[in-house]
């Protein structure tokens, strides 16, 4: 994005947006608001890792098992972010979801392609095909949390905190959202990296946070910090 953004930059300062809760899943590890929620060495398979996190999180949601890897990761990250806070005070239409990744739904695309590779066993599966769009994870998060506001899925080669901030800032400036989940949900084979944050207006936030975690100003630097430090 161009750097000539002076008007937006000024408004950004006035907006005073905060990261009021975050979750980072990466390398068999789950961090929620600076605290280690889950870690286990030597899990080699993504499926085993994400199932262990689901079990530990103790959310009873059988549909979880039907989801594709990206949806599983995004869903659990959103659950963990929202467990420590609440969005119930917001109107469902005023809560947004802005997610991004590098490979779109390629991991599941390959799975669907497997079902149509051979003409002798040609059985495309609707429950696989439906996940061959990156924004289905947004749908899953919205269904679970009754979120009905602005939603978009963006693609960038690598994590782009500035892109997310610019997009989410515009939503707040135009009064399209009062709270917004935003982040990065990337899964390819057994590798996954997901960051989910809840962004709220400093003056209108719904909770005072958990001990030991200080709200962070919502900006690209802090997003980059969370995704690289943890």
């Amino acid at each position, binding site marked *: 994005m161009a750097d000539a953004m002076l008007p937006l930059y000024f408004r950004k300062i006035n907006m005073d947006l905060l990261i009021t809760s975050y979750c980072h899943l990466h390398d068999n590890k789950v961090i929620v608001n600076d605290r280690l929620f889950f870690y286990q060495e030597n899990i080699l398979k993504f499926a085993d890792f994400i199932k262990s996190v689901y079990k530990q999180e103790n959310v009873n949601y*059988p549909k979880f098992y039907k989801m594709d890897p990206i949806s599983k990761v995004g869903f659990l990250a959103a659950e963990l972010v929202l467990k420590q806070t609440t969005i119930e005070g917001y109107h469902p239409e005023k809560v947004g979801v802005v997610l991004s990744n590098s490979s779109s739904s390629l991991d599941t695309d390959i799975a669907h392609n497997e079902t149509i590779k051979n003409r002798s066993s040609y*059985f495309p599966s*609707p*429950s696989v095909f*439906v996940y061959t769009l990156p924004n289905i994870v947004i749908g899953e998060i919205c269904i679970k949390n009754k979120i009905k506001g602005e939603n978009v899925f963006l693609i960038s080669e690598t994590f782009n905190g500035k892109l997310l901030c610019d997009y989410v800032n515009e939503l707040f400036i135009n009064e399209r959202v009062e709270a917004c989940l935003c982040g990065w949900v990337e899964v390819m084979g057994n590798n996954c990296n997901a960051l989910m944050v809840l962004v709220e207006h400093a003056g209108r936030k719904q909770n005072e946070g958990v001990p030991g975690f200080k709200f962070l100003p919502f900006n690209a630097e802090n997003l980059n910090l969370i995704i690289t430090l943890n």
Partner: protein
Amino acid sequence: MDELINQLKKEVIEQLNLEEISPDDINPDSPLFGEGLGLDSIDALELIVLLEKNYGIKIQDPKDGKKVFHSIRTMAEYITEHKK
């Protein structure tokens, strides 16, 4: 018939990713849709694929699906009737 019913239970659990449900949890006469297993429209389409893939049976008219997929037993009966 009982053998087919047990086999079908396992196949439905696998095909529909009903991870936390065991074959014993499914009553062969209980409705598959509505309450209970929490199945939806995608699951219904997936059951059509299951019949085709595992038994070579094609449901031509989607409206037949409602009767066929009422319960595990109605599925078993349909398979017995239509298997080549």
